[in-house]
């Protein structure tokens, strides 16, 4: 290879000249083809986190519940009774923008593997999706494909998809976000780490054959902006095979139950290269791999192709030689391919052989630890980064039509069209399915534990765009509030940082602010971050996406037997508003529908929110509430309307006290509008028998608890003083809410 050719090659593979120099320095020579391919992937943003690793250090990762923190394939927390819950969220944004069905499907497949790689049985999937507004055919195409793909994989493999969120905004039109979170459960003693151990042990590849899938995918698809040239990169679409993964999953769990494996690791981005080098790095050993032994789907694959292929549904494990036959027997029973392809060495080098001949030889440390980490150069943008959303509400709309417009808007309308495509029941653990609760609830009786776990995934990119720090804090608060609505206390948190190009100072600023917000919120609530994922360079043709940190949280519910519902269940219940909720139009859906976008969100008092969450949780756990629903997009009016339409029970509320809380400065009419549609963290609508709700409210400080009114009738009526200000038939609200998204697909 001539020097010129090599120089071009490293750039094509996404390495800078100085990174290339550094590789030469670490190797002591020019890399050959195999080595260059391996380095380029290991040193890609996707694998090396070179623009985010320093920032991630700010996140608190320790806490009393933590069993496994970041660094393993998934994080894990203790849920008592000798059990651990493992979870992680991961993005598959770029592949899904190219081919939404397979992109989303393989995204689910990938996150499932991360969870069973640590020995946990996946029991739930949640998805967090972002698309452009649904009046665009491209957005509908992407959403249609992505939702079907998520359903296809989860339904086929038999893991319940129990929750998620879908939000829309113009900046996602060319760069949709597909984040999937998986939650698994394991006896603590089955948890396994990925560190390779035991010189002389065998490295065994399990599962699917290796093809030319996603060659270069990690560097090209996941770490570069999607630009004009992307059409030529398209053949690297990977196809998911949930049937294969189901067998691999059952097989791996059985191998672990029988204690036949020393360590286990999934094959994800960068395939064998990354799995083998990370296993070697964590175990402080070396690994020899013979690519000729890797079962191939296609003839004529080169060594480097085998090393970087991203073929799905494969796992790598370390096995003591004496146990290989026993491993084989289990694999045969599950009809899973099992091939010893290498061995653990004491060299601390990753050596690639082809029929015994060395074709690559790299220090493990160089691959895993020596990639340069870059400092960001954050700079607060002097002017707004995003154009305001397109106006969708005519000026001067009255309160009733405003409420209907909000309920029917893409972001607020029911996502039933999507979640009905997901099997939310398989596993027989689902106590609260999508649509019936702010957080999904799964009981653990079949797994030998008492109680249940609750989980939620949240993140409002538009609000983060208004204010990256506060927006990120709010994402954590919203997750925690969703859990509080079912009485769950957070055990741990995972996150996915979806951002645009961090080499641009204003994007770096968003990232830095958001990570600080996440870190502060986690500390404020005493929740540890046990894992996550970073997806950068999310800017298609239309500019940067909204900065979108997505937060996933898992909490513990002591008694799932008496949980409140998200909707009003019967007439004559007292309705109250809990929490330090101080609504504002800044960053609200109403603002977006009006085609405006604020700069900055109101500051918030984390300590007050933490106390309020504690109180709400206690109230729910006391078992006296029939209804608990978090106030979120669309403000209190939408929360009330949603509570009414869930079971067709109306309500009459008086907002005098809230209007007064909203504000001095505002004219009276404006203050009502803000009280109805303003947004902000901290609010929760609850209902129950008069005695209990009134007692509860009396026990809390007046600035965190208000009686609003009573359930009953067929209307939602809002008064101030004794004057009705907004009246709407529950049925009309229900129609707007049910049709807002579904109608785009009929």
């Amino acid at each position, binding site marked *: 290879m001539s020097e010129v050719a090599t120089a071009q090659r490293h750039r094509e593979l996404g390495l800078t000249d100085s990174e290339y120099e550094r590789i030469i320095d670490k190797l002591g020579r020019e890399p050959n083809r195999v080595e260059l391919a391996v380095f380029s992937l290991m040193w890609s943003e996707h694998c090396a986190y070179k623009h985010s690793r320093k920032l991630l250090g700010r996140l608190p990762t320790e806490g009393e519940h933590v069993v496994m923190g970041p660094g393993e394939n998934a994080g894990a927390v203790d849920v008592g009774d000798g059990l651990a819950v493992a979870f992680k969220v991961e993005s598959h944004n770029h592949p899904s923008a190219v*081919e939404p069905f397979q992109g989303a499907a393989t995204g689910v497949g990938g996150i499932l593997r991360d969870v069973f790689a640590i020995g946990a049985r996946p029991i739930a999937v949640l998805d967090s999706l972002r698309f452009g507004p649904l009046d665009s055919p491209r957005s509908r195409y992407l959403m249609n494909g992505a939702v079907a793909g998520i359903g296809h994989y989860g339904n086929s493999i038999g893991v319940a998809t129990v929750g998620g969120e879908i939000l829309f905004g113009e900046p996602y039109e060319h760069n949709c976000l597909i984040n999937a979170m998986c939650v698994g459960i394991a006896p603590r003693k089955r948890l396994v780490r990925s560190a390779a151990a035991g010189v002389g042990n065998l490295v065994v590849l399990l599962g699917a054959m290796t093809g*030319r*899938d996603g060659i270069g995918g990690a560097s090209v698809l996941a770490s570069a902006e999607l630009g004009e040239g992307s059409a030529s990169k398209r*053949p690297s679409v990977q*196809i998911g095979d949930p*049937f*294969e993964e189901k067998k691999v999953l059952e097989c791996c769990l059985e191998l672990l139950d029988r204690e036949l494996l020393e360590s286990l690791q999934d094959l994800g981005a960068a395939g064998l290269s990354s799995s083998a080098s990370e296993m070697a790095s964590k175990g402080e050993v070396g690994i020899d791999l013979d690519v000729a032994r890797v079962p191939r*789907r296609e003839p004529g694959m080169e060594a480097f192709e085998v090393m970087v292929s991203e073929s799905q549904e494969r796992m790598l494990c370390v096995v003591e030689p004496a146990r290989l036959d026993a491993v084989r027997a289990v694999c045969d029973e599950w009809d899973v391919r099992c091939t010893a392809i290498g061995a653990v060495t004491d060299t601390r080098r990753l050596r690639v052989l082809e029929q015994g001949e060395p074709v690559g030889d790299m220090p493990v440390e160089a691959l895993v630890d020596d990639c340069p980490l870059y400092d960001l150069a954050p700079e607060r943008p002097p002017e707004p980064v995003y154009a305001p959303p397109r106006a969708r509400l005519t000026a001067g709309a009255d309160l009733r039509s405003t409420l209907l417009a909000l309920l029917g808007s893409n972001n607020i309308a029911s996502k039933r069209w999507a979640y009905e495509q997901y099997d939310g029941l398989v596993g027989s653990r689902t106590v609260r399915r999508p649509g019936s609760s702010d957080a999904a609830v799964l009981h653990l009786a079949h797994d030998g534990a008492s109680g249940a776990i609750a989980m939620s995934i949240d993140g409002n990119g538009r609000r983060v765009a208004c204010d990256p720090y506060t927006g990120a804090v709010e994402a954590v608060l919203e997750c925690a509030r969703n859990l509080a609505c079912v009485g769950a206390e957070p055990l741990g948190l995972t996150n996915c940082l979806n951002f645009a190009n961090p080499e641009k100072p204003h994007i770096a600023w968003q990232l830095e602010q958001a990570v600080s917000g996440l870190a502060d919120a986690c500390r404020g609530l005493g929740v540890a971050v046990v894992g996550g994922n970073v997806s950068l360079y999310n800017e298609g043709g239309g500019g940067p996406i909204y900065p979108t940190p997505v937060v996933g949280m898992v909490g513990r519910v002591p008694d799932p037997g008496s949980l409140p519902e998200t909707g009003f269940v019967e007439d004559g219940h007292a309705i109250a508003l809990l929490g330090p909720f101080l609504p504002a139009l800044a960053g609200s859906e109403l603002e977006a529908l009006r085609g405006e976008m604020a700069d900055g969100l109101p500051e918030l008092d984390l300590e007050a929110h933490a106390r309020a969450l504690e109180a709400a949780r206690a109230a729910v756990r006391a078992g006296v509430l029939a209804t608990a629903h978090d106030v979120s997009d669309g403000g209190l009016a939408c929360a009330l309307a949603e509570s009414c339409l869930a079971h067709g029970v109306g309500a009459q509320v008086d907002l005098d006290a809230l209007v007064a809380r909203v504000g001095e400065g505002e004219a009276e009419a404006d203050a009502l509008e803000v009280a109805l549609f303003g947004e902000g963290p901290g609010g929760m609508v609850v209902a129950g028998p008069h005695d209990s709700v009134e007692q509860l409210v009396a026990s809390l400080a007046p600035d965190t608890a208000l009686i609003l009114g009573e359930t009953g009738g067929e209307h939602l009526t809002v008064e101030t003083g004794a004057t009705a200000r907004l009246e709407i038939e529950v049925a009309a609200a229900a129609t707007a809410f049910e049709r807002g998204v579904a109608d785009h697909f009929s």
Partner: protein
Amino acid sequence: MKVRVLIRPKEGILDPQGQAVERALPALGFTGVESVHVGRLVDLEVADPACVEEMCEQLLANPLIEDYEVQVDDGGRA
């Protein structure tokens, strides 16, 4: 005019359906079968067969992962 479109997984793209069939056949006593691939077949009647190519690109096939072949039934053998 009657047109038949044959849509197949692109070469090199994983074909789980084909694999599943190939693995099922021996159990049924059918041996000596290989290279099984499962694709789709679309039959249609169209006034102007020239536009079928474009239809495949846009709707019938997914050109990222599938190849297609258009056969026009001109009255004789397809």
